[in-house]
């Protein structure tokens, strides 16, 4: 009990510049290692997935969030609790599909791209694709198969950054999720 309380109050702040520059170094190194942007995007998603399957444990331990009863509640938790906790931003939730299985996260500002200007030879690069992998991996660990992808990006000249989330199915498989 006391350990749980300590964990909840533990501060894990780091300099936002260090975080942004570290992620930037990661992406540029991947750009050097792989031949094309599509491979870099896949690798960022893969890395994000491996972060997400671990991060969800930390999130559930610290946030006191109970079980979500529908996808709308999940969306609220992602935007208001998870993004706030780990990135210091609160995206807005819009563009729900009529069936309630799709929505968009609008990021007014994305801390990952603070200093970034994409060169012309990386027009297909999805710079923050790690976030999509994190979301997919984290939700998979709570039995939700989702698809997450960037549909708008300020680095590409759009006005906002938009992540489109789509619920695929509830995962009934009781076997532990392995790494990709």
């Amino acid at each position, binding site marked *: 009990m006391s350990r749980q309380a300590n964990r909840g109050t533990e501060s894990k702040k780091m300099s936002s*510049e260090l975080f*942004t*520059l570290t*992620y*930037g*170094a990661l*992406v*540029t190194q991947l750009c050097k290692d792989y031949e094309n942007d599509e491979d870099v995007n896949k690798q960022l998603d893969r890395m994000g997935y491996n972060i997400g399957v671990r991060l969800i444990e930390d999130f559930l331990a610290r946030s006191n969030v109970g079980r979500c009863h529908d996808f709308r509640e999940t969306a609220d938790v992602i935007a208001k609790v998870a993004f706030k906790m780990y990135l210091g931003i609160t995206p807005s939730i819009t563009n729900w599909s009529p069936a309630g299985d799709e929505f968009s996260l609008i990021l007014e500002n994305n801390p990952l791209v*603070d*200093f*970034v*200007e*994409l*060169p012309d030879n*990386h027009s297909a690069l999805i710079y923050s694709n790690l976030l999509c992998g994190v979301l997919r991996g984290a939700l998979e660990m709570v039995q939700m198969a989702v698809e997450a992808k960037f549909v708008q990006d300020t680095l590409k000249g759009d006005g906002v950054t938009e992540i489109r989330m789509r619920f695929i199915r509830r995962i009934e498989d009781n076997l532990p999720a392995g790494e990709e």
Partner: protein
Amino acid sequence: MAVCIAVIAKENYPLYIRSTPTENELKFHYMVHTSLDVVDEKISAMGKALVDQRELYLGLLYPTEDYKVYGYVTNSKVKFVMVVDSSNTALRDNEIRSMFRKLHNSYTDVMCNPFYNPGDRIQSRAFDTMVTSMMVQVC
């Protein structure tokens, strides 16, 4: 406002140089090139005093008949040079200083761009936009 703005690397080669109007470009390049001697002179002359004061602004490097040339040097020895029309008497020292500070902030943002290789020429839309706002508006 400025008619020419240049960013010079530690090893004294240009990282960025922009002038307006462009037909006088060569004259401004020559002016900036000449000013580097004065910059080095000022740095060595101020010596320890410069370091103690943490003063980056070098002030007026030299006047010519038509233009004034101002300098600014960062702690990492990157030099900024700004050429201003002499007829622009409204431009005060404080304004030149704040323009240089703005230029310095923009330069640090360029350095923090993970796709920018230190030592390469600066090709940054944000930096270009900021420099444009400090240049003379062509009619």
